[in-house]
């Protein structure tokens, strides 16, 4: 996997065939986080908390639906996702890179939740949950590469 920055902030990701196929398999897991997973507040002392929580859950559900749409459009656009003889080329605008990070981390955190939110090492791997462990690790690996490439140039406004 090779990432390069182009003028204008575009990020070009060159993937070998196996890497590209792996990324496609990981992205198929999206969305992975259970809906209404995150509380707005831990203390429960906010005014109209139930209503505000509902609004937050709806906003996050809409955002996930939008990300799913953007992901489908990206993978169907040969200008941005090109299959080559030896692999794939992904061309991302800075905006694309941000929502792709959100997608990858949804898969990572969602897989971790499915695994029982372990504090340390994942215990009790079996045929059923191995795919979640794999998705968590692979999404994390792609995410780390993307963050490293983005932060090369980003040091705040």
């Amino acid at each position: 996997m090779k990432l390069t920055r182009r003028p204008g902030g575009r990020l070009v990701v060159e993937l070998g065939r196996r890497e590209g196929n792996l990324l496609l398999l990981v992205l198929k897991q999206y969305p992975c986080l259970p809906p209404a997973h995150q509380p707005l507040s831990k203390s429960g002392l906010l005014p109209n908390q139930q209503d505000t929580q509902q609004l937050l859950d709806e906003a996050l559900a809409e955002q996930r639906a939008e990300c799913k749409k953007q992901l489908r459009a990206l993978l169907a656009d040969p200008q941005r996702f090109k299959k080559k003889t030896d692999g794939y080329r992904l061309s991302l605008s800075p905006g694309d890179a941000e929502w792709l990070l959100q997608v990858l981390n949804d898969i990572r955190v969602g897989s971790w939740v499915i695994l029982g939110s372990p504090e340390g090492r994942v215990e009790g791997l079996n045929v059923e949950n191995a795919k979640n462990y794999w998705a968590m690790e692979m999404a994390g690996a792609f995410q780390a590469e993307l963050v490293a490439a983005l932060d090369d140039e980003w040091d705040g406004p």
Partner: protein
Amino acid sequence: MAATATPEVVPGVIQDTENKPKSGLEPGYLVICWNDPVNYMHYVTHVFQVVFGWQRKKAEFHMLQVHEQGKSVLTRESMEKAEHYVHQLQKYSLHATMERDE
């Protein structure tokens, strides 16, 4: 050192600061990020930079606070702004909540 002024109380007005409800416009809400074992440190730093527009140094300071102390108060805002920031952070699947600043 200047002497402390005696507070003036207007007759007929009862001052009740303890039970005063926080208005939505008052910056009385804390946006907190909590530690979890799944989010990578560089990712958390990146998200803080994007969501708050912080320099890397400030974002790293708060990320380390989350990592070492279990949580970090990222900002103190009005209710609406705090909701906005929690939404932005949760979009990136960070463990963020808002709490009243008691």
